[in-house]
């Protein structure tokens, strides 16, 4: 068996989730190559070479791959991928964007968002917002898979010394172009990697009030998330949404503030180790999954929590 893992990176650095994807690859077993496709992505490739269990790092460094445009990247990965038994990447928005194109080009199915490897052809993934867990067996020659990072403990990012090999394979579909991006800047830990996450919902009332969560987050070294209602209302940007159709988080501690606990929200955080809910409605469904529930007005409870830390 031979596995191609497509690295998540921003050219300058490797995203930690790549180490979780490598862990899934290891569970499948076989030689693992990593593809780093980008523009000026040498540093990310160096980092990938240090990760545990990597045989070879392939680097496709070209302007065509600079913004991970799915049209170009999928042509490259399909071209390389046909020589492997498995093609894996993380179920982030980049992987979700380009990998189904790869599967279609290879005329195989994609298995999305796996949380466990049963064997080289059988995988476990949540369906129906995590309300059911399916075991899926594939009969395709190439298994094309996105991996939910929180399902796998990361491999070590140090100690490896894989060969780094530049590949000259430029695929430019010529049908799409990057225009601009508006990326959230934050010194807080990235949501999906944070040990502690504190999220606010509609109960926060406005974006300004998120400051009280941020103050607690800074004391705890936590990431700050939100419910869909808080994002839809414009309190906070979309990249903070936790849930079925937002980010999936599984921190040691998740604190839900002014969030009712709709199934779509639970789908994104019920894998957390310890859940705390602060809500003024004692009937709120969030309390059914919370290890510690505090029935209180958040505008009193959160500042008090801040003061107590």
């Amino acid at each position: 068996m031979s596995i191609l893992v497509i690295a998540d990176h921003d050219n300058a650095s490797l995203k930690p989730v790549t180490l979780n994807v490598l862990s899934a690859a290891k569970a499948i077993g076989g030689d693992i190559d990593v593809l780093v496709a980008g523009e000026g992505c040498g540093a990310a490739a160096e980092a990938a070479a240090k990760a545990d269990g990597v045989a070879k790092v392939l680097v496709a460094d070209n302007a065509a791959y600079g913004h991970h445009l799915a049209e170009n990247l999928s042509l490259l990965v399909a071209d390389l991928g046909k020589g492997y038994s498995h093609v894996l990447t993380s179920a982030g928005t980049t992987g979700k964007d380009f990998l189904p194109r790869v599967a279609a080009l290879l005329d195989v199915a994609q298995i999305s968002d796996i949380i466990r490897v049963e064997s080289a052809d059988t995988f476990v993934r949540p369906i129906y917002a995590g309300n059911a867990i399916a075991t899926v067996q594939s009969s395709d020659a190439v298994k094309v898979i996105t991996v939910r990072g929180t399902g796998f403990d990361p491999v070590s990012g140090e100690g490896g010394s894989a060969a780094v090999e530049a590949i000259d394979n430029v695929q430019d579909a010529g049908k799409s172009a990057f225009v601009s991006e508006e990326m959230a800047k934050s010194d807080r830990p990235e949501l999906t990697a944070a040990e502690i996450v504190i999220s606010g919902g509609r109960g926060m009332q406005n974006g300004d009030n998120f400051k009280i969560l941020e103050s607690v987050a800074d004391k705890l070294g936590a990431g700050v998330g939100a419910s869909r209602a808080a994002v839809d209302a414009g309190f906070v940007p979309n990249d903070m949404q936790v849930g079925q159709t937002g980010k999936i988080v599984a921190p040691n501690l998740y604190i839900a503030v002014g969030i009712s606990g709709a199934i779509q929200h639970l789908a994104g955080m019920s894998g957390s180790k310890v859940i705390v809910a602060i809500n003024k409605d004692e009937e709120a469904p969030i309390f059914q999954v919370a290890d510690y529930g505090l029935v209180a007005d958040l505008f009193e409870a959160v500042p008090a929590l801040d003061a107590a830390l």
Partner: protein
Amino acid sequence: MKVLVAVKRVIDYNVKVRVKADNTGVDLTNIKMAMNPFCEIAVEEAVRLKEKGVASEIIVVSIGPKVAQEQIRTALALGADRGILIETEEEVQSLQAAKLLKAVVDEEQPQLVILGKQSIDSDNNQTGQMLAALAGMPQGTFASEVVVDGDKVSVTREVDGGLMTVALNLPAVVTTDLRLNEPRYASLPNIMKAKKKPLDVKAPADLGVELKASLAITKVEEPPVRSAGIKVADVAELVDKLKNEAKVI
């Protein structure tokens, strides 16, 4: 320009699914079904493009059992012009759905195809991208804004780090995210009118697509249940529990 919208009949998003006792799937008998919420957003976007004079005709297509005509009628009531049902009682996987849609694209030659980014049953998030690859089209996935400008469409995408805007040559595929728009409700007169709009029914074989599935679901189980913990009296007790019992802060 012609706009093609794909819609899927799925379990209503408010319904809590139950896993069948024999672990073969989820129990859908007597369950309320509806149009997938992301597909509603796709229909709404097409209708807005028509209202702006950008779209000339909206064709709505669904793949599914005979009753999926209900979801097509809903889309027609919201403003689509005609419908196509690709009727099958079989479970259709994403790649096969994409191949069926590709056949419709070949026939209809739309300039824009709009789909939901994922359906809330299988949560796959694949069909739009697969269709785009098969049709050789560019794609704007997880769209929060779509602006058609001449022979290009600019799509702002919700990505993990924030927002990213791409410019795509038409024809193109767009998949919708939650913030693209807020779908309207169909009015009673429009629901009545929709009954008279054309709705074509085809079989997968008519489109030359064989429904062979390469993925087999061998087991469906309940997720591990989380049980409710305790209620704490105040913030002091909460902090004490987190420090000394859970040891997470």
